[in-house]
């Protein structure tokens, strides 16, 4: 319906093409494509225009995306890679808006193009083409290079908001455009203006346009949408209907402003907006001031997306009050009621809102969700519950009654509605990487677990935190780091559960699990054994909170290979036994792609050992991380290493060479953990923060403090100074190149540094992240 992203996509990509640039009078053209059977000539005719939207000099590696709209008005995404070292541009077409995944895909193909084995590329393309797309939240894994390498992409979860810096598009937009101008664009989109973005950089241009659309979630831009406009299609700027078009600077120069009429123009390079309208000030002022307040604390993570989402909740969340439930009939929406039930200050705007295509589509979609029995089940509805908890539960009750009546009348109703309706929206914000709050709360929970366990007091010392997880359970109700039971923390950190009153969080409101859970019940029983607790609790917490595989069979940890440590060393080449297939050259070339964490074969399994004693810290990085550590019976160093599925105990043999040298070796591998080549070309915070922490950088490899996540070091630093981290433990950890004062948190997994964890401020109805204010 409203969604313009295709449902039930079967393949990762539809077509891969290599495009030759224009020379003289020749137009750009496709020199080769895969698969050859892809025959949409209209699309193939158009792709070269988008790959070279104008004649430009290629001086940096550049990724950008473009969008083709078919006659059903569904989008096909084109991802493009320009490399100054290459004569051609690489383009991949897909129905999936997984920007990060496709840029990585293009990087891999670019590497394989230079492989000495010419079959490598084709084999890779064919393997990926034929691979099945997994469920959201999983990993799309394809092995290639004769099984020696693995291409992996996180399958985005539905309803996840784009966050910074994981989402490249939003990060780029956030860096290029200040919050005020983001708000102006947001407002102009709500008024369905004709909007032009312009930039000299295609990457920035497409990222900003894509993000501007992501930000109006749960609404979806219904009009002309062209993230990068080729010169040859310049006349589209004359379209009388609303549009959102990214116009490369060079193309924009050819346009006479007077021809276009009234448009909003955002120059993403200079962060300037020209607009004949006063859209921001025409929004209800309480919403504007709310947004401004939200932006005062520059929010990373999904803060930006959530700020806009909450603004929309304030504006249109009241749609719920205008729903009409009548047994035996479809749920309907009463426009008049919608206006009347709103505060007078909102009414004038909402009256106008009714005439917006995006709003009408939004309502259609909500009704469709309800009438097909999906209930109130996305991020928007969740926020809405936080906003108006009371009406939410009443409404749910109404809906429950309605659905049960409908069910009595036969499931045929839902089915018939479903058949007619085009399931939508789920994929609205798919451009988001995997991960999320669950991990963060798991992480926090883990910490308090360690602290709470009698044997883990030393551990607690290493992770001192102002939220004082040791406080009595009654207090924990308001403690941000307190963790609720899995039902409450599913994808949401504890504080959110607090805010929404009793931790109600549900994506399937009709299920019993959606009942509010008392925070008190979050206390998992403590065992009397000081040794057992951390292990068992860690396992359970990780399993539950990560929410990855609820149906996962119990892990036999005695048999399970420890595959965690090599995740710190994601250089596959290191593990390639020379006799295995795959050309050495290719292997070397493939060393850099980052997400091979799970791909490399595990090294020999260190024997398990019982853990005694404390001392600890957390190294977090990549797919798995150290969650605790200490010394074993014989004094050998031990680490708890957790990945998404398990927590393992790892015993390290004492370093052979001097700690210093050993550290360097380890750190070489650590480099690959975070400093992914994939992301090298963007640094969301380059303007605002240094890449290393003064005072430590002298003896630490740069790699550990990945510039990408450098902001993480700001707040954590306060709490991770040597004062608090026991000297002894630090030394031990440093011996292994694991310096916890430089903990770099894997943002891909949605983790936030717990020290920077949100301080809950029940200001109005919203939770504020204050700890990022220092940025």
């Amino acid at each position, binding site marked *: 319906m409203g969604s313009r992203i295709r449902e039930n996509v079967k393949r990762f990509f539809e077509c891969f093409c290599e495009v030759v640039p224009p020379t003289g009078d020749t137009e750009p053209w496709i020199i080769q494509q895969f698969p050859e059977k892809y025959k949409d000539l209209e699309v193939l005719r158009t792709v070269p225009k988008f790959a070279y939207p104008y004649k430009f000099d290629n001086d940096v590696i550049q990724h950008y995306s473009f969008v083709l709209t*078919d006659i059903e008005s569904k989008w096909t995404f084109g991802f493009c890679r320009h490399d100054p070292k290459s004569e051609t541009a690489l383009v991949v077409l897909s129905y999936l808006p997984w920007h990060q995944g496709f840029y990585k895909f293009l990087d891999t193909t670019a590497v394989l193009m230079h492989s000495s084995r010419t079959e490598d590329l084709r084999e890779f393309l064919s393997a990926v083409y034929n691979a099945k797309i997994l469920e959201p939240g999983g990993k799309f894994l394809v092995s290639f290079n004769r099984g020696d390498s693995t291409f992996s992409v996180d399958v985005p979860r539905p309803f996840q908001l784009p966050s910074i810096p994981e989402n490249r598009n939003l990060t780029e937009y956030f860096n290029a455009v200040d919050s005020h101008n983001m708000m102006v664009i947001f407002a102009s989109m709500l008024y*369905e203006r004709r909007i032009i973005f312009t930039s000299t950089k295609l990457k920035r241009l497409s990222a900003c346009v894509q993000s501007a659309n992501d930000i109006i979630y749960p609404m979806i831009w*219904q009009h002309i949408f062209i993230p990068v406009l080729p010169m040859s*299609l310049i006349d*589209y700027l*004359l379209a009388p209907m609303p549009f959102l078009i990214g116009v490369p600077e060079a193309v924009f120069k050819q346009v006479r402003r007077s021809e276009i*009429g*009234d448009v909003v123009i955002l120059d993403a390079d200079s962060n300037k907006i020209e607009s004949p*309208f006063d859209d921001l000030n025409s929004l209800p002022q309480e919403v504007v001031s709310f947004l401004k307040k939200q932006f005062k604390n520059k929010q990373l993570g999904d803060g930006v997306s959530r700020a806009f989402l909450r603004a929309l909740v304030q504006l249109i969340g009241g749609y719920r009050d205008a729903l009409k439930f009548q047994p035996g009939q479809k749920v309907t929406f009463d426009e008049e009621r919608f206006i009347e039930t709103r505060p007078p200050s909102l009414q004038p705007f909402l009256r106008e809102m009714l005439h917006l295509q995006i709003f009408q*589509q939004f309502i259609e979609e909500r009704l469709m969700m309800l009438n097909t029995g999906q209930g109130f089940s996305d991020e928007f509805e969740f926020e809405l519950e936080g906003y108006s908890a009371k009406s939410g539960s009443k409404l749910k009750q109404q809906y429950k009654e309605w659905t049960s009546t409908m069910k009595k009348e036969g499931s045929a109703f839902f089915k018939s509605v479903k058949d007619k309706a085009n399931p939508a929206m789920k994929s609205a914000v798919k451009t988001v990487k995997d991960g999320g709050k669950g991990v963060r709360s798991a992480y926090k929970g883990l910490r308090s677990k360690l602290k709470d366990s009698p044997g883990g007091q030393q551990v607690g010392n290493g992770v001192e935190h102002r939220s004082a997880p040791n406080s009595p359970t009654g207090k924990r109700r308001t403690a941000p780091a307190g963790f609720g039971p899995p039902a409450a923390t599913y994808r949401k950190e504890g504080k959110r559960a607090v805010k929404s009153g009793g931790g109600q969080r549900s994506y399937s409101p009709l299920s019993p699990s959606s009942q509010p859970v008392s925070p008190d019940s979050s206390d998992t029983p403590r065992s009397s054994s000081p040794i057992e607790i951390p292990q068992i609790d860690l396992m359970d917490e990780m399993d539950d909170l990560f929410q990855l595989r609820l149906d996962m069979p119990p892990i036999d940890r005695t048999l399970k290979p420890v595959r965690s440590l090599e995740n710190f060393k994601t250089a596959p080449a290191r593990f390639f036994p020379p006799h295995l297939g795959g050309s050495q050259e290719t292997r070397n070339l493939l060393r850099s792609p980052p997400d091979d964490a799970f791909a490399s074969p595990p090294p020999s399994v260190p024997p398990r050992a019982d853990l005694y004693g404390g001392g600890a810290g957390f190294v977090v990085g990549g797919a798995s991380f150290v969650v605790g550590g200490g010394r074993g019976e014989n004094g050998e160093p031990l680490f708890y290493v957790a990945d998404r599925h398990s927590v393992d105990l790892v015993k390290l043999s004492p370093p052979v060479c001097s700690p210093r040298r050993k550290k360097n070796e380890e750190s070489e591998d650590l480099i690959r953990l975070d400093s992914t080549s994939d992301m090298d070309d963007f640094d969301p915070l380059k303007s605002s923060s240094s890449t290393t922490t003064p005072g430590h950088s002298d003896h630490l490899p740069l790699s550990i403090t990945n510039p990408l996540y450098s902001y993480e070091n700001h707040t954590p630093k306060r709490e991770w100074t040597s004062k608090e981290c026991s000297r002894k433990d630090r030394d031990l950890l440093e011996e292994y190149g694991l310096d916890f004062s430089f903990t770099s948190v894997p943002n891909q997994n949605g983790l936030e540094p717990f020290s920077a964890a949100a301080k809950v401020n029940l200001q109005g109805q919203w939770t504020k992240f204050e700890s990022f204010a220092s940025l």
Partner: protein
Amino acid sequence: MDDYKFLFKVVLVGNAGVGKTCLVRRFTQGLFPPGQGATIGVDFMIKTVEVGNEKVKLQIWDTAGQERFRSITQSYYRSAHALILVYDISCQPTFDCLTDWLREIEEYASCKVLRVLVGNKIDREDREIPTHVGEEFAERHNMYYLETSAKQSDNVERLFMQIAEDLMKQARSRDLPRYNSNHQNINGTTTPISDSSCCSGKFINAIVIFGKPTACIHCS
């Protein structure tokens, strides 16, 4: 590209399959190759006509995937000069949908957008909507009415010429945008200079055609 004195934008609206694209193709006589409808989701065609010795350029916009809209909201056509609402005289549902399409348009009855109701496919024998029903409907909603056959070219020319004449009359007498022939536009021709205001908000004027591009057996 030739010079022109006026540029008008026309938007087509109507259910899928009523022949919107065929109407435009017929009018432009295929002089202008099909555009980017299948890759941009919107197609437009341009034809320059002469009205009273003045050259008038008509830009006719045809949007794909309109059936996903329950109705067309004013934001969709507020920059258009004219709106052509098309139904198929041999298909009752396409006529019944007109109320839906118009629901929004109605609220802005004072808007200066020129509105024309077109019953297409009069060449068909299985007519379901008598002419007078269409006429009455148009009258009730303050629209022009015309029946056409894109297949046989009946009234197609007349439809667009009528629109061009009317818009020009409006432009001369009122505040429709004037086009200064000295201005080079994107196509190397002349361009609009100012926007007129419409209803309560600020609007630009233009003409738009709605609908999903469909293969029209009828007029091929």
